[in-house]
């Protein structure tokens, strides 16, 4: 599945750590929560970058204190309707201060992209190339949103206050 970042298809430079493997490969490695919990000491010694992949039933609250070890967090969207990771993303960005790459994985459709961006995701494992083409359109569909969220867009309320201050 293509990996979309900043509107471009990019190469996926992350390798998932195989199950039951003793050796940690070189470079950028993604681990599951279980792998992290079982092999924390070993993994902390890894001399490449670490990424973490969470299932939709795994809240990032569980690793909030360990986030400094990860350059990437990947959150799963197993079904279009499973929206838990939108909350997880906002918590990672706005509560736990995660500044690394936040990736949405699992068949992301074009119609989810705008919601995801507003929750703090910056890369997407998209379902197909159509999502890639549609990226710019999807980002441009709305010029303003009602809600303040972590991607630092001011909400309408704030804008209106700004507008009324200018007028008044």
């Amino acid at each position, binding site marked *: 599945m293509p990996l979309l970042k900043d509107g471009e298809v990019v190469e996926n430079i992350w390798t998932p750590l195989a199950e039951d493997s003793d050796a940690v490969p070189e470079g950028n490695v993604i681990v599951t929560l279980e792998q992290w919990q079982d092999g924390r000491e070993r993994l902390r010694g890894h001399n490449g970058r670490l990424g973490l992949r969470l299932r939709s039933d795994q809240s990032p609250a569980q690793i909030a204190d360990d986030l400094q070890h990860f350059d990437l967090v990947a959150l799963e969207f197993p079904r279009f309707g499973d*929206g838990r990771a939108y909350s997880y993303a906002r918590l990672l960005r706005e509560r736990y201060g995660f500044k690394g790459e936040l990736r949405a994985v699992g068949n992301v459709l074009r119609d989810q992209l705008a919601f995801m961006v507003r929750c703090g995701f910056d890369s997407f494992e998209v379902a197909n190339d159509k999502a890639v083409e549609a990226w710019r359109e999807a980002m441009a569909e*709305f010029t303003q949103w*009602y809600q303040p969220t972590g991607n630092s867009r001011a909400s309408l309320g704030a804008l209106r*206050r700004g507008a009324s201050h200018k007028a008044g």
Partner: protein
Amino acid sequence: MYRYDEFDAAFVQQRVKQFRGQVKRRLSGELSEEEFRPLRLMNGLYLQLHAYMLRVAVPYGTLSSKQMRMLADIAEKYDRGYGHFTTRQNIQYNWPKLEDVPDILDDLASVEMHAIQTSGNCIRNVTADHFAGAAADEIEDPRVYAEIMRQWSSLHPEFSFLPRKFKIAITGAPNDRAAVRFHDIGLQIRRNEDGETGFEVIVGGGLGRTPVIGTTIRKFLPKQHLLSYLEAILRVYNQLGRRDNLYKARIKILVQQTGAEAFKDLVEDEWLQIKDGALTLPAEEIAHIETYFAPPAFETLDANQPAFEARRFEDRDFARWVRSNVTAHRAPGYACVTVSLKPEGEAPGDASAGQMRAVADLAERLSFDEIRVSHEQNLVLPHVKVTDLAEVWETLAAHGLGTPNVGLVSDIIACPGLDYCNLANARSIPVAQRITQRFSDLKRQHEIGDLKIKISGCINACGHHHVGHIGILGVDKKGEEFYQITLGGSADENAAVGKIIGPAFSYDDVVDAIDSIVATYLEQRREGERFNDTLARVGQAPFKEKLYAAA
């Protein structure tokens, strides 16, 4: 009422354009039905028994005459000349074509209306007291906050893929006409000891398969914290609500399984992290929205209107209509008129394009251009001068809208049922019609007095049968339509879920059963005693006895 500013207008137009693109991609094959379905649901477009069904949002049930006229135009141009007003204050069209829906949405956008989030697993229309801004017992107009919540919930990026639908209701009066205790979140405006107004927050109420009365998790929430508190509740729900079982995914199940106290702690813990943040409502923002809901320029009138009294004295039909369909207003010399959409022989809650226009004309001339949709599937003209009541009545009657039955036995709430709905097990509309026919004598209806019958065609309870004084639930028994009867439900501040009275009745027998129940009530009641009070006093036994006697 609220008027879109340039931001709101742009938002709706962009949403329509987005949906137009989604329809195009569906019709070109780029999107499969599985991919399109959640997208069309977020725009209120269902596939029902006979056709698509489009549910148009009427935010907190408030409409202008211009908007009502557009609803009439849409009914004629794109549908079959009528619409259905729902138990969540919205309107449904039963026959739109998919390819026409983007044009319908464009027409709606031109009058500041839309179909956003009237379906799907997202936050739905925030409903409110249909007498808001007019009722004599109101503390504050709840629609100010309904509008604030509407904006906050529109395409909320975090809460558009919830475990299940999410329904919020708000009332501004102690007499709860919005059924707040039966919503996922219910809000009741309260005054604290310092005289400030804020919200009682009630969570986890609902009807459906498992009716539950909501739990108060906060007795008094100051206004500026409304959105941050709601966000905390939704965030807890979005993370912890069940995703594995559609029938156990509502927040009421989460509250029950977690326990009310533990649930409250989860919410309050989350809220502590975000209160006083970006979602805090500054006083000026509330004041800005309040300006849209300022009371109209009521004239200073006498409460006593001799011409009206004389007419009422002479004209029995007028008097009867006033008694059932007219409610006291906060401004002397004014009244709230409920327009009955329950005439004999018609489907409850349906209105033709012609009827919609008649109501629009009356509203424009005689009700400060305001109309409300009540969750009991009637319309309301909220601000009518007492001296205009006779004219209003005559005009309504000429259009089949003057039946003097509001709150009475033929003012039945009925879901669309098996005649329209994919989910139904039995028909509900013809049962409502036959009950109305049985009680055709309006004099008798007035003698019986207030009696709420509510009918659902399946266990999803869209007809709110659990909270009817008499509730009727259609079930499928070996391919035949049968009806289970419950007694003693109530949607107001004395919230109660009705209890089953005994074995179900066939389609042929159910009307006799209702007749029997009403007869028992009349026999047993004391002077002025209402149905639920009689039931509470004598219990179900006398009702059962008569009902199941001649077996």
